[in-house]
């Protein structure tokens, strides 16, 4: 069990009825890195993330997250931001954070206060009336107020306004600085995140089309965007 590897997938397959959503997915993510999961719509990113979380079980292959098979225990050690998800809209931000503090065992009140301040979230606003950008920031800070080693974000930027997007990516950059947290981010917003990824995993039609270290890419004179175009266009 290598402690520097946070995620290890080997030959993962996932089939729904007759359709194969994922096949032969193999990759690894090192701890303290920011890994990008890039690919067109319907490539299987969300399915893969659900497998990593443990809400879905792969039909074949092995997955190791933080050294063990994904399940309820790993849920307590990682934060997950679902794609286009919503928080309970009958609560205010403060009430939600209150419940979250009780539900997540690794909640850190000090972190929560800091993040609420940095993300400029008004505690008394009702979640049902928040704009997309506001709710996106609240969801992110819910993920970051926990002392988790792995943070998985599924499309955190979809439909989010410019300034909220910048605040979100600032937060990600800051959190990786201490080397504790690993981020796995699925996104279409390549330009925003280009300079942040340590490694990118390109996934299309349910298979891995390529795994690249961004530094090596740039040493060869290619950008993340040009690499994406080459693989998918």
């Amino acid at each position, binding site marked *: 069990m290598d402690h520097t590897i946070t995620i290890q997938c080997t030959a993962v397959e996932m089939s*729904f009825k007759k359709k194969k959503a994922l096949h032969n997915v193999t990759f690894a993510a090192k701890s303290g890195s920011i890994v990008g999961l890039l690919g067109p*719509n*319907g490539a299987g990113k*969300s399915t893969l993330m*659900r497998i990593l*979380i443990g*809400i*879905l*079980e792969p039909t074949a292959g092995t997955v190791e997250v933080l050294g063990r098979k994904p399940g*309820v*225990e790993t*849920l*307590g050690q990682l934060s*997950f931001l*679902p*794609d*286009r*998800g*919503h*928080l*309970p*809209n*009958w*609560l*205010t931000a*403060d*009430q939600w954070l*209150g*419940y979250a*503090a*009780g*539900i*997540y*065992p690794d909640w850190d009140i000090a972190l929560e206060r800091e993040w609420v301040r940095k993300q400029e979230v008004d505690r*008394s*606003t*009702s979640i*049902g*009336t928040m704009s997309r950008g506001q709710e996106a920031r609240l969801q992110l800070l819910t993920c970051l107020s926990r002392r988790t080693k792995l943070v998985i974000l599924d499309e955190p930027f979809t439909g989010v306004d410019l300034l909220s997007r910048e605040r979100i990516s600032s937060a990600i950059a800051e959190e990786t600085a201490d080397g504790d947290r690993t981020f796995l981010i699925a996104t279409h917003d390549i330009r925003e995140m280009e300079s942040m990824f340590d490694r990118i995993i390109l996934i299309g039609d349910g298979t891995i089309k390529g795994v690249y270290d961004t530094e090596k890419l740039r040493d060869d004179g290619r950008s993340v965007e040009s690499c994406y175009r080459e693989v998918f266009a």
Partner: protein
Amino acid sequence: MSRRQRPFSPIVEFEHSAFTPYLPTTKKTASYWVLGIIIAIFACRIGFGDRYEPEAVYVLGVSLAWVSFIAPMSIRALQQPSQPFQEWWLTFPLDRRTLVRAKLLASLRLNAHIAAAIWLIVTVHNFSAAVLTESPFHASLGRLWADAASYGLLFAAIVLLITCLATLAPIALHGWYRLLIFPYLVLWGFPMGNLGSLLQGEVQTDRWLQTPMVLLYACAGALLGWILYHVAIVGVAKVAMKGLASHEPGKALVHLHRPASAAQRTVRGRPTAAGFRSLFQLERSRHRSIAANKWLQLVRGILVLAIMVGGYFSLSNSEWIDMIRAILVIPSIFIITHMTLTYANDMGKRRLEWMLGFPYSRLKLAFSRLLAIWATTALWLGGALLAAAVGAGIRYIVNRPDSIGTSNSLYTAAYVLLLFTVYIIFGTLVSHVQYSTAKYPVLSAIGLPFMMLSYVAPMLFNQYVLPESLPTAGVSHSLWIGLGLFAVIGLPFALVLFVISTRGMAFSMLASQAKLARRSGVTK
């Protein structure tokens, strides 16, 4: 009715296409329909045989059709504002009335198929019963033909009437029209009340249900339906569409004024529990926020007063037991459906993945919800019973009746309470079986019938288990033993079903969420 606009037809085609997959249009779907009808006929044969009058079975069919129209349509109406496709639909360059009419016509087509199928089933059953029976007292062929014709017309009238009624449902979400929700709910549950008496065959198939009267009902229903048709088109176009345009998908449809203070009133400061208790309190907060809705509070106030008055008047002659029954019967059905509704709501609002991401086993998650439902039920039903007790107490002080009841009445009341408690626990546990169909098909095959049964159980209780004579005759030993068996065998059984179902829940719900998203036009 405007037939001026030619672009009318494509929109009707478009709305029809939403239901076409379910109708017997292809060989595959047609064969499903035929298979279903055949199975239903056999079920009728076994269940009804020739013990029931043909009219009774027809009325049963009509009740079933009624519910199968109003329930899905109402749910669809509720979900409509949060469907992302709404925005596109609203921008079609067509008269709003044309849009509503197209939707209405599509529903009519679907419901007509359902009604026709049910009519066919009952008619075939009745004829086969007449042919196969040995009793000379069974209906004559002439009567059967008359019934088939008149009830066929009644079915048609019901299709028109109920479809138009259900189309009006979205109006009840805006402004003062919200007061209409209560009568609407009564209409929704109305046929269920008849089911019980029908099943026992107690219904007098006298002139009120024979052909001439049925024809009258059909005509009245058709007329009313025709009126409602126009009311629906004009009404929905005017009232409901405006509300849709100002609504953003994903946001709360009903905006609570100053929501922060309303919700904070019910939560004392910041919740401080941890772990499982937090899950429980989160779910409870959902119920509390529903209760905080000012319209619901208005309805609640009216109900409480009504119950107190009822309690006042029913203190004599053990009628208070009927009061208890009345309080328990309808809510218990809604409680059981509530589990399904909250999960469906979470799927529609895309909260599911957040909930599944909580670091607790699926069993704990489901159980926290269950516990919260039980707690809220206890509070609300308890409150209702208390209101009745207060009314009764006032009567006792002010105008004590001569006879309140016997010791048997007390046993009966206790029996009723226990019965419904066990039933609610059983029903809520078993309702989870619907989520295990993907992973544990055998289990769901076993459990689904019980789930279906639990929806009609209160009616069955009212008729079979708790007849009118109970308070005076007393609860027989067999009834107590029956209840005991139900509790001792049924509850553990339901618990096992529940526990196993939770294992497959995540998978099944995620699939449902994806299906829902795809159907409502959210592409991935």
